[in-house]
């Protein structure tokens, strides 16, 4: 591919990469506000730690594994661009848009980072920080990079002529006739993280006091702040996934906003009917549910379709977050209810709502729907199995849980030697020595 720099597209992708990177600290606040006051820092450190580990791993072998030369439809050659060595603008994934290779890497790295961080919400308050850090590096390698390659890197779940869709519905002009749609990461990011969250929540077990003690958010403004930063960053995520500053980016921007608005309102109404109150936690969660659900669909729907998708996602996720009590798994901050459910809802609704004769409502046939269901299922099975195996290995080796004493007394103090807030009036420590 020939490369001519387009400074406008590059500017938008640089901005988008920066926006998406901000999402992970945003998530740290979304999650950190939701836990109890004694585990705020640990929750936030799981996000910051994920940035640290995945940021480095991505540059070393992650980009190669995602977008290197295909190996069996599953991964790219891991050491092809090790340390980004030998990466030329011509070889870039966004070269067609005149965006330099390293800007494309920057953008993609941020997706890997947040996907890992998302998982941490399911295992709040009780997880060893060291095990989490090791998990982050291995999971992103075994589950995220392959899925990114399969869906976006020309692998098995893409429109590749060797892919699943081509096998089922055939090819046209050398690509699958029915191209699977995952605009910005419904499968790669949200289903992937959501199912991993479910597996780990079950594997690691419930918090002491789950469904007995109140575990209400200790700081709801932080949750709102997190939701706001996530939304803001998500414009990079979705509109940036157009790969260019053009009309598709504009469509993705508008769809992202209206779906999120609709999901927020949907969640609030569902909650008001069921529980009697429209809560701020509901608003923040509805925002995230809408953002998740529109992610795979942002470039494939029209604005009215996005509103419909948003409302459905908002209501369904509002109902889904109660499932953990029914089934007895402690998905502490509702990663499953929001990301797995929202990711599946968005991925599947594309099969109904996609314009250009693709969705059932516009094209009148169900092929797109079938392929959307299949990629969702594939992602669930792939990530679920990988996570289970890795989770079990780590359980047997490093162990996942802190001691009960640390959990009850507060993981912040036990693991990080800190508390989130120092009380104002009365100091609780005295300096005895300076080193």
């Amino acid at each position, binding site marked *: 591919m020939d490369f001519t720099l387009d400074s406008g597209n590059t500017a938008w992708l640089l901005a988008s990469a920066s926006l998406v990177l901000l999402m992970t600290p945003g998530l740290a606040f979304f999650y950190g506000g939701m836990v109890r006051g004694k585990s705020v820092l640990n929750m936030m450190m799981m996000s910051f730690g994920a940035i640290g580990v995945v940021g480095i791993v991505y540059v070393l072998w992650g980009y190669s594994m995602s977008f290197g030369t295909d190996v069996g439809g599953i991964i790219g050659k891991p050491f092809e661009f090790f340390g980004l060595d030998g990466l030329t603008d011509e070889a870039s994934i966004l070269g067609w848009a005149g965006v330099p290779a390293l800007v494309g890497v920057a953008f993609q790295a941020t997706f890997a980072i947040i996907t890992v961080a998302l998982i941490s919400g399911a295992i709040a308050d009780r997880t060893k920080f060291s095990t989490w850090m090791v998990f982050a590096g291995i999971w992103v390698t075994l589950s995220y990079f392959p899925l990114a390659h399969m869906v976006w890197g020309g692998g098995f779940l893409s429109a590749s002529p060797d892919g699943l869709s081509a096998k089922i519905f055939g090819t046209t002009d050398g690509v699958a006739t029915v191209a699977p749609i995952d605009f910005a990461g419904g499968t790669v990011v949200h289903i992937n993280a959501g199912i991993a969250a479910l597996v780990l929540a079950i594997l690691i077990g419930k918090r002491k006091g789950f*469904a007995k003690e*109140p575990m*209400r958010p200790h700081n709801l403004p932080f949750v709102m702040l997190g939701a706001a930063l996530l939304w803001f960053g998500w414009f990079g995520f979705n509109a940036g996934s157009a790969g260019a500053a053009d009309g598709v980016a504009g469509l993705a921007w508008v769809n992202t906003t209206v779906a999120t608005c609709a999901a927020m309102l949907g969640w609030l109404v569902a909650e008001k009917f*069921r*529980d*009697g*109150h429209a*809560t701020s*936690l*509901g608003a923040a969660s509805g925002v995230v549910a809408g953002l998740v659900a529109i992610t795979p669909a942002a470039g494939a729907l029209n604005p009215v379709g996005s509103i419909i998708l948003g409302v459905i996602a908002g209501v369904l996720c509002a109902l889904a*977050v*109660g499932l953990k*009590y029914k089934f007895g798994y402690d998905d502490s901050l509702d990663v499953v209810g929001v990301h797995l459910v929202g990711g599946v809802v968005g991925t599947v609704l594309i099969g109904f709502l996609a314009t250009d004769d693709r969705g059932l409502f516009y094209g009148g046939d169900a092929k797109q729907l079938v392929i959307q269901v299949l990629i969702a299922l594939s992602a669930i099975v792939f990530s679920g199995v990988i996570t289970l195996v890795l989770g079990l290995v780590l359980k047997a080796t490093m162990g996942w849980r802190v001691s009960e004493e640390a959990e009850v007394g507060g993981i912040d103090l036990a693991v990080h030697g800190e508390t989130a807030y120092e009380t104002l009036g009365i100091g609780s420590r005295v300096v005895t020595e300076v080193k």
Partner: protein
Amino acid sequence: MTKLVTAVIQPHRLDDVKSALEAAGVRGLTVSEASGYGRQRGHTEVYRGAEYTVDLVPKVKIDVLVADEDVAGVVEVVIRAAQTGKIGDGKVWVVPVEDVARVRTGEHGDDAL
């Protein structure tokens, strides 16, 4: 001699109680935050799929040192000013005090009030 009158009341009655005590000649008191557990509890609410019962309700605790002869009056003043007639209005109790001192001057006894 002196007594310690302690009152646990609804937070939003604090201003009225302060004013009433001042009007009754009390010149100092100490306030702290507390939580009350009593008949008032029982209100339940649903939040994100789980039902909660409110158990501890915010209260304010007032400590007033008073000279023996004023105790009965002070207790009545507090009751009148804090009363709303609803469950959860709180309690007042009186404890004997053997000595009082003002830190600033080191004075003891009723002079220290």
